[in-house]
């Protein structure tokens, strides 16, 4: 039996279905991310686990006990809120001690645990500060210490890094992962940031329109997205509309904008499909080896890499190249592109509604 088991979780607000038939299993000590665009139901799912929302139907089991009927205050979960929700009228120390106090832990033990938690997030020197005198990153750590000090069975993180600036966010990602592993706590992260989800989690669960689309390791989801929504949501990709002609164990044959292309074997019926091709899998080659050719219409320098947009017969293609200090094609220059067929991902054509 998994440590945390969500089965058939559904939440309706009147006619609006926020979460539909959501099932997920999380093992002890695992770090799982709920990833999806805003309004996909990920926050509602977190709220139901936390006990702030009552599920319309479905079950939540944690460590063998049902949580649905347990009030939020008795669930014993550690929660880090998007706004951190620190108590502004209490010092860092008092903030962290609050949960222990509610559990009736005596003063000496409390002080010892608070010191330990602040040590873990490297804020021991700021114990007497008030939250408003701290930076965003420090507040984030206090929120984390406050959630962890009660030794929760499950740690819930609600967009914890979205209020930090880009550089700090990267630092905090590493820090968050270290703290989570040191504390060894089972963690569920809700985020709309694919980088955050991929960097932090053992497993990513992608949500869309209140439904679970795919749950696998970040590498798997990135490499083998199940739908074109996932392929565009996780990382950059070239999404092409194509027609699948034939497919067998060896490979498949596609037609894209009147051009014939070779693809990997697909478990799809012949007909219209979506093809996803990651920009970093496209190579610039000599004219003789080219699959398609065309002029550079956009050229963006990103420091560690170059981003090109190239007009080709099968549509504009995004190409990413690592910056190794060599000469790169100029704007307007014709380049020749190639890729190995097994880098193409053949996906069912999405309904307009989905």
């Amino acid at each position, binding site marked *: 039996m998994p440590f945390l088991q969500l089965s058939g979780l559904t939440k309706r607000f009147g006619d609006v279905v926020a979460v539909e038939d959501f099932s997920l299993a999380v093992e002890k000590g695992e770090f799982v991310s709920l990833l999806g665009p805003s309004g996909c139901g990920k926050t509602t799912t977190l709220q139901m686990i936390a*006990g*702030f929302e009552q599920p319309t139907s479905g079950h939540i089991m944690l460590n063998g006990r049902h949580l649905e009927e347990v009030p*939020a205050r008795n669930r014993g979960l550690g*929660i880090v809120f998007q706004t951190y929700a620190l*108590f*502004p*009228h209490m010092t860092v120390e008092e903030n962290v001690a609050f*949960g222990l106090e509610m559990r009736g832990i005596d003063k000496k033990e409390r002080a010892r645990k608070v010191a330990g938690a602040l040590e873990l997030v490297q804020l021991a020197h700021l114990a007497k500060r008030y939250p*408003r005198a701290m930076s965003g990153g420090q507040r984030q750590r206090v929120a984390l210490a406050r959630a962890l000090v*009660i030794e929760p069975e499950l740690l819930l993180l609600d967009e914890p890094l979205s209020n930090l600036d880009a550089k700090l966010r990267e630092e905090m990602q590493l820090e968050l992962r270290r703290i989570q592993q040191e504390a060894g706590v089972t963690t569920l992260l809700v985020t709309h940031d694919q980088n955050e989800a991929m960097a932090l989690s053992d497993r990513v669960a992608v949500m869309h329109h209140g439904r679970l689309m795919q749950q696998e390791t970040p590498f798997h989801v990135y490499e083998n997205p199940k739908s074109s929504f996932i392929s565009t949501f996780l990382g950059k990709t070239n999404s092409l509309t194509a027609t699948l002609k034939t497919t067998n164990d060896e490979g498949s044959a596609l037609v894209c904008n009147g051009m014939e292309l070779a693809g990997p074997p697909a478990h799809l019926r012949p007909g219209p499909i979506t093809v996803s091709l990651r920009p970093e899998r496209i190579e610039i080659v000599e004219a003789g080896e080219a699959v398609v050719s065309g002029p550079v219409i956009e050229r963006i320098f990103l420091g560690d890499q170059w981003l090109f947009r190239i007009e080709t017969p099968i549509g504009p293609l995004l190409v990413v190249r690592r910056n190794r200090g060599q000469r790169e094609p100029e704007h307007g220059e014709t380049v020749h592109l190639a890729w190995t067929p097994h880098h193409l991902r053949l996906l069912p054509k999405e309904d307009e509604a989905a």
Partner: protein
Amino acid sequence: MTRRSRSRPWILSAPALLLFLVLLLVPLAMTFILSFHSFSFYGGITPTFSLENYIEVLSDGYFYEIFGRTFAIALATTLICAAIGLPQAYFLSRMHPFWRSVMLLVVLGPLLISVVVRTLGWAILLGNKGVINDALRDLGLITSPIRMMYTSGGIVLALVHVMVPFMILAIWAALQRTDPATESAAESLGARPWTIFRRIVLPQAMPGILSGSLIVFSLSASAFATPAILGGRRVKVVSTTVYDEFLNTLNWPLGAAIAMLLLVSVLAIMVGWNRLVERRFAGVFE
């Protein structure tokens, strides 16, 4: 900055400053000077300079009683307003935006009606032959009427009705700045609803309660219409005493001295209160 642009703010605010000067500072200064003059029944007011009016007030137990009653009424009004205003402001801040604006209108509505009219309404309710007493007697709950008119309790009741919107607005403004997620956070850490209110909501509402108290206390201590109508000549407060000195006894200098003492004592209480609040919450709130 050039000289021209430096003088511009002064020029622009001159009309308001002038109004302020003529309508507030001048009468205040004249009242202050008046309070040192002397008065006799046959000679009227003579422009002398002496402290006799102040000495008269400060050496007479009668005036101490009036000042004591005034501040007791103001304090009771403030406490009751805080007790009513806090939960009401809390509900307001957690309401759906549409209903919140409707309810804010309901809260502010009474301010659109003259205090005199509202207080006369209270007189109709509270009198010995008033609505409340009649109803209680008809129900057989009492045999002789409960005296509510011309009591301090009656004044407090009506003052609370007048002042409570100010308290609600002040607390609501403070609660607007708080993060509702702090309550969820406390709940997830194991706090019961009452504990959340006492430990999380109340302290965050405190700046609002304190500034609301400041407004309500000073307005109640200097209120005139409500104590004049509901207290009559029997339950005197400072402002009605001043009125009587000016218009009945015609002893303007004594009235002026009492008015100055009220001003100074209310100011002293407000400044002291503010100091206390700032010291207590300086580290916590912006």
